[in-house]
């Protein structure tokens, strides 16, 4: 499942699992709508990872705190630390690639 975060519970969401992926989305955003089903599909398909989304049109303080410049932005966290981020609507294949970067960061360099 995808957890819907708010300003109040955002920090708690980041601590809830070793690997966390956050989708920062906004109102009236076509690319966000495009990404959403692929994000949901990945969440259904990949236990052990926590998938979170937060509407930064409503929770703009989070958008400011994390310097979100555009939506959708995906941030990938391990043990609460940001590993990397990606921007824009994307299909499942690219999303899988970004998740792989988070999971296997320690092994991607010789």
């Amino acid at each position, binding site marked *: 499942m995808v957890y819907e975060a708010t300003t109040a519970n955002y920090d708690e969401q980041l601590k809830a699992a070793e690997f966390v992926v956050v989708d920062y989305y906004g109102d009236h955003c076509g690319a966000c709508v495009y990404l959403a089903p692929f994000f*949901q*599909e990945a969440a*259904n398909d*990949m236990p*052990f990872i926590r998938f979170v989304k937060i509407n930064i049109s409503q929770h703009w303080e989070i958008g400011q705190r994390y310097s979100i410049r555009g939506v959708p932005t995906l941030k990938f966290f391990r043990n609460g630390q940001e590993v990397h981020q990606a921007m824009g609507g994307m299909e499942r294949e690219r999303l899988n*690639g970004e998740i*792989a970067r988070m*999971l296997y960061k320690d*092994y991607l360099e010789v």
Partner: protein
Amino acid sequence: MASTVVKLYDYLSADLPPELRKWHVTEEEIQESLALLGRDHAALRAVEQAREGDSLRCRDGQGRTVLLYPGRGLAKEAEDACLGKRPGEGFSCRLGERDVSLIVEEILRLEPHPVDGGLVKLAGIEGVEDLAAYRAWYVKENDPKKRLEAAREIARRFWENIRERSELAMDQAERDHWCGVRGKMLYDSMVENGRDPHIPDEGTELLSDEEALKQMVDYQERFYRDYVLLRHIAQQDGYTYTRELFDQEMAEYIAAHREQLEAAGQDLNRAFTDDDFLMKSEGAYMNYAYGLLTRAAEQYLED
């Protein structure tokens, strides 16, 4: 002087593919939505031997967690190597650029909820307790959205034809001013967001500030043509975006988002210029004209 549309393509006479007329929810879509619901409410079960589609939590030699999802293609060699393994079992594989040794700690398998009345109740839709009620609800919820999507797709086809087949009489001064304002706005935005506007569209030699701005300005011409067409479509229908409308919209926007804008450091007392109004008018004419084209598109839809 303003650029004008000499001849607007007669989009209502466009010959469109018959499949664009279809919009009703299909049985296939209902089944897919139920299958997705089943996956949303899937049960996770610990299993004793990994197969494709399972999810594995492993540990490497340094005690770090390694997650593997055989069959999803995130790390194919490692995913293949873990098939058939059991909790507590070790194996070696290639992961990224490294040879690693992993120990399986836990294997989970997703079991989608069967498509039945129980699943429908889990969806928590008011008044929907069985599959027949779900079908009726799904059609009622989604038919209007699908109708709108179908109308918008036809409207997009109208617009493509209008862009390609209409004739314009360009006023160079208006063109230069419009492209200059828009180009400068986007140039400044690129710089503010850490993107380099000096990279040329062709070649490898970096552009000077002046050349970079010119490149950005010249790039705007395609959008200027669209603006002239959209303005024409809207004004033919009796709509003109005025300075009064702009001032009112800006006042309402600031009132609704004051706290957010102040926190972002925006100067809310800044007077809006004629160029601000010009750029806002692009969006206003676009919204109006697309709305008009979408309403015209509805006459093509099946009953």
